[in-house]
């Protein structure tokens, strides 16, 4: 009897220790595990508007990279099956407000005188690495409304630098004055977010159970919202369709 009691206490204690360690280590992953995710597809109804070609002759090193495949604008990037890329999907209402920023940095790379990716989404306070992979100087010039504006050069070969954003803003236009065609967005959101890929698919992870308003933002077509309810441990789905003007 006595030994049995001893073992039970030990087992309980070990379980407690393990549990606290798990909490300490994984932080919000516990939340995510208990929460669910939202997946879906963004589609474009109709044909995408004509995307003008970009003439990079001013910057021969960049022009050489795109010699075989001419570059066009990326204001509306539609996939073959009508999927719409570069749409930021985020939760605009219903968050508890306790969501911490991910510690994983996102990055924006200047390559071939384009921003890769064209649209970057990240959390308030999340780190963003700015990388110059080109053989030329770029200046990164975001023009936010809710965050401080800055404008910084990055010579070729300079190390990446790190940026964070203090306030939510969807979305901050980013440009390079040296290469005026360069154009991208940084969407600063709070809580889980997803960006659609070429096929239009997106996924928001770590959404705690509850009902939310989901917003999809596209740089040309603006925003769409819909309500979605996430049950514990079960992925919710939400699809968006933008209509070409």
């Amino acid at each position, binding site marked *: 009897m006595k030994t049995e009691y001893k073992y039970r206490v030990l087992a309980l204690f070990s379980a407690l220790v393990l549990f606290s360690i798990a909490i300490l280590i994984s932080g919000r992953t516990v939340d995510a595990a208990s929460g669910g995710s939202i997946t879906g597809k963004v589609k474009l109804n109709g044909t995408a508007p004509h995307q003008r070609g970009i003439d990079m002759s001013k910057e021969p090193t960049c022009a050489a990279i795109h010699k075989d495949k001419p570059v066009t604008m990326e204001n509306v990037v539609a996939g073959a099956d009508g999927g719409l890329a570069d749409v930021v999907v985020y939760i605009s209402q219903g968050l508890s407000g306790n969501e911490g920023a991910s510690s994983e940095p996102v990055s924006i790379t200047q390559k071939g005188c384009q921003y890769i990716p064209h649209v970057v989404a990240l959390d308030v306070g999340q780190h963003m690495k700015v990388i110059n992979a080109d053989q*030329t*100087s770029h*200046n990164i*010039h975001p*023009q936010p409304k809710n965050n401080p*504006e800055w*404008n*910084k*050069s*990055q*010579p070729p*070969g*300079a*190390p990446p*630098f790190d940026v964070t954003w203090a306030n939510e803003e969807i979305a901050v236009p980013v*440009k390079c*004055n040296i290469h005026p065609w360069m154009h991208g967005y940084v969407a600063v959101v709070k809580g889980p977010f997803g960006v659609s890929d070429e096929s239009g698919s997106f996924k928001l992870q770590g959404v705690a159970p509850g009902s939310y308003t989901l917003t999809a933002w596209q740089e040309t077509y603006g925003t769409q919202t819909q309500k979605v309810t996430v049950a514990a441990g079960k992925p919710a789905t939400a699809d968006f369709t933008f209509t070409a003007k």
Partner: protein
Amino acid sequence: MHDMSHATEHHAHTPPQGFIRNYVFSLDHKVIGKQYYGLGLVAVITGMVLSWIMRIHLVWPNFAIPGLGLLSKAGAPGGIVTPEYYLQLMTMHGTLMVFFVLTNVPFAGFGNYFLPIQIGAEDMAFPRFNMMSFWTTFVAFLVLIAAFFVGDGPPLAGWTSYAPLSAVGGAAGPGEATGQTLWAISIAIFCIGQLLGSLNFISTTLDLRTKGMTLWRMPLSTWSWFITSCIGLTAFAVLLPACILLILDRTAGTSFFIPSGLVINDKLQPHSGGSTLLWQHLFWFFGHPEVYIAIVPAMGIVSHILINSMRRPMLSHRVIIYSLLAIGFLSYMVYGHHMFVSGMNPFSSLAFSFPTLLITIPSTVLVLIWIGSLYGSKLRITTASLFALGFISMFVSGGVSGFFLAQPSLDIYLHATYFVVGHFHMVMGVAAIFGMFAGTYFWFPKMFGRMMNETLGRVHFWLTFVGTYCIFMPFHYLGLAANVRRYSAFVDDYLQPLLGVHKFITIAALFTGAVQLIFLYNLIHSRFRGALAPANPWEATSLEWTMPSPPPFDNFGGRHPVVYHDPYQYGIEGATNDYVMQDSPEEIKSVRDER
């Protein structure tokens, strides 16, 4: 204005007591002169270090400059200069050099110290204005330097600060926010200081000359300071309003220089109707005379020293003065040659081209008289005279390139290339600095009572003379090959073959800059350890050499010297010495000045 009548009231004949009154807020023109010189020295060292950073960046763009990253994290991350920081350093280099070195040292520095002495006065006409003039300039300097430490760093628009780049504010990119505002404020303050200074110089020259000191009997250095102050009075009086309007455009939303319909970063600017050429006109109305503010005192100083070294007066004292006057007068009529391709009426370009070519005549007269006077002289070689001769050589080299730039048709090709950079660095930068060096080696014994080391001085001269030619001659070649100035990197295909020349220039610049340490050492060492200087070490004639070295507080000990002769009575036949001092009542046979 209410201070004017203080002139004589404050002429106590005992020096003021206490460190602050003696050395900081001193009313003594000699202390103020040294203060200007010291400020110029700080500015020139800063400016030179900036030029090193720029030169290094141009040829080794990936070289991390130690410590620079600490000064500006954004501008030079890890010590690597960004394009905007290059332009910011360039702007600061230009502003520091033009305003705080070329204006301060030969004119305000030496002028303050020696103008009253050379005309036999106890002090300047308005000693309080004089003190205010220096301290305003000092505040202007602090405001400008503060730009290094504000938000997005120092101004970027160049020392000419062309609107609208300089006027639209932070929207135009880094370096156009607080830094540029500080620039405009600093220059406005600087103008006030220079106006007070010029007022003083003119009044002093006209009113405080001692008995017998007619205008024609003033030494050439005094003449040059006097003419410079006349130029400065009118030039800075125009730059000041321009800066006020620029500050208002930047801070109060007015549109003096900002036209309508400007779109910056896809945003339509809220300004309307301003004229960008208006800034250029106002600026260059000041800007070109400013060139002569830098060079005329150097011409005067060099003439003064050369005469002493040649042991004979110039071929003509008066022709030199007339030439200086002509240069001063014409300097206002030529400013448009900076704007040949600016979109100004092409007829105006021709109208400005003619006086520009005309101004070469008095300049040539000066050069010919300097060289012609060497003929048959008994040239004594000292460090001071070496620099004076070097000045002539530099002035000729920098001057002939003026022939090209004075012609609108050639300016189409050469405008804004390194040819221009070479031209003005030689004729206004290096030549004026050679004037300063000559003045320093010549007058140091008088100012500090100790001799400078001649050997070090000569080493300094040789290395500097050859070094500056190595830097600035190739600039002209670059310009001929259409190398555009104010580029932080040379990415254009046609510029690639020129990179070697740039490397050569950078190495020469680093070398020549390092050579200046010899001068600095000589200056500091001689100040404390140099041999004691006699009253008249160079056997010179003008009034500054009639007093002990250094001069007592009230210059002539309360006595008013009486002047009997023209300033340069050298080579007197039959005299025990070959010279007669200005205040010597000795009757002399010949006045060698041909007039």
